[in-house]
């Protein structure tokens, strides 16, 4: 039954999101805060996997499913990712005129803003778990700046940050 519950949580998250990582607030709320199936460190590790993997960033859900229940959890996450994709065929068909309506667009806009507002709060909690040294906070700021200011691939930023901290922790004997 746990796999069905996990699938339901993932599906709620994907059906209520319209951008890359806006599933994050619901996932953290359900799996970290309420059920304690994973920790903030696990969630951060899953996002790291999602950002290092080709395709959409939301594949981090597969990593979470894997952490919680192994391969059945990973399959549950995959199903929850692919299932809503078929809804676009409804939009492309009969619902297309409604999708162009200003009220519909406003609703989507507010949903995107709300989910990202909530994601900011989630980010604060992830930072609290990840920043065990002030240099890690600085590394985080540098990573954000690199993503916003350069065309460097996220994979290189992640590998560089990992290698940098490995070196620093050896030099400072952390």
């Amino acid at each position, binding site marked *: 039954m746990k796999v069905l519950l996990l699938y339901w949580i993932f599906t709620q998250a994907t059906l209520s999101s319209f951008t*890359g990582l806006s599933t994050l*607030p619901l996932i953290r709320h359900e799996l970290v805060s309420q059920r304690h199936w994973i920790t903030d460190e696990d969630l951060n590790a899953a996002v790291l996997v999602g950002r290092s993997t*080709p395709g959409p960033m939301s594949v981090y859900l597969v990593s979470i499913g894997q952490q919680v229940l192994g391969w059945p959890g990973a399959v549950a996450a995959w199903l929850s990712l692919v299932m809503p994709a078929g809804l676009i065929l409804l939009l492309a068909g009969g619902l297309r005129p409604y999708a162009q309506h200003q009220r519909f667009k406003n609703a989507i806009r507010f949903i995107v803003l709300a989910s990202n507002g909530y994601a900011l709060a989630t980010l604060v909690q992830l930072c609290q778990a990840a920043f065990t040294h002030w240099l890690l906070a600085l590394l985080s700021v540098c990573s954000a700046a690199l993503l916003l200011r350069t065309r460097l691939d996220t994979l290189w930023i992640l590998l560089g940050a990992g290698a940098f901290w490995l070196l620093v922790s050896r030099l400072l004997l952390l």
Partner: protein
Amino acid sequence: MARHASFTVGGGGVTAVALERDLITCGWMDAETFRTYYGLARITPGTVLLALVTALGWHLFRWRGAAAALLIGSVPGCALAAVLSEVQRSLTTHPTGRAFFAGAAAAVCGLLAASIFRIVEPYFDVSRRIASALVLLVCAAGGLLELHPLLLIFGAGLLGALLPTESASA
């Protein structure tokens, strides 16, 4: 599609740009059609990239194309994520692995902050910034107070749909 699903790292936006370039170069579709589907994918619940490839597959080969595109678009990334997750878990048992992932985890926080900034920035144009800022701040506060996210997210959506158009974009 299989090439981008398997090798293009950087999220759905990057992959969509690569797909657009290839499909238009091949002459399978014009830019306007691609952008119509991309626009629809952005307002489809769930993962934008998966909705986009499903629509592109349907446009080219109907149901068989949609099903094949969805599988090709999701399976390589998901399988790799599951394998990487296992690898990561085994590496973090070693001190060197732990140190590496501590640095990468800090970078993830920075990348998340940058992603949120990129997503919300277009909503802060002059005519809409007050409503946008209010929704963003109220939901951030709600998140810190651990309110249920669906309550806030769909509450905000309902508000957007119910407000008069002028007020919603004020």
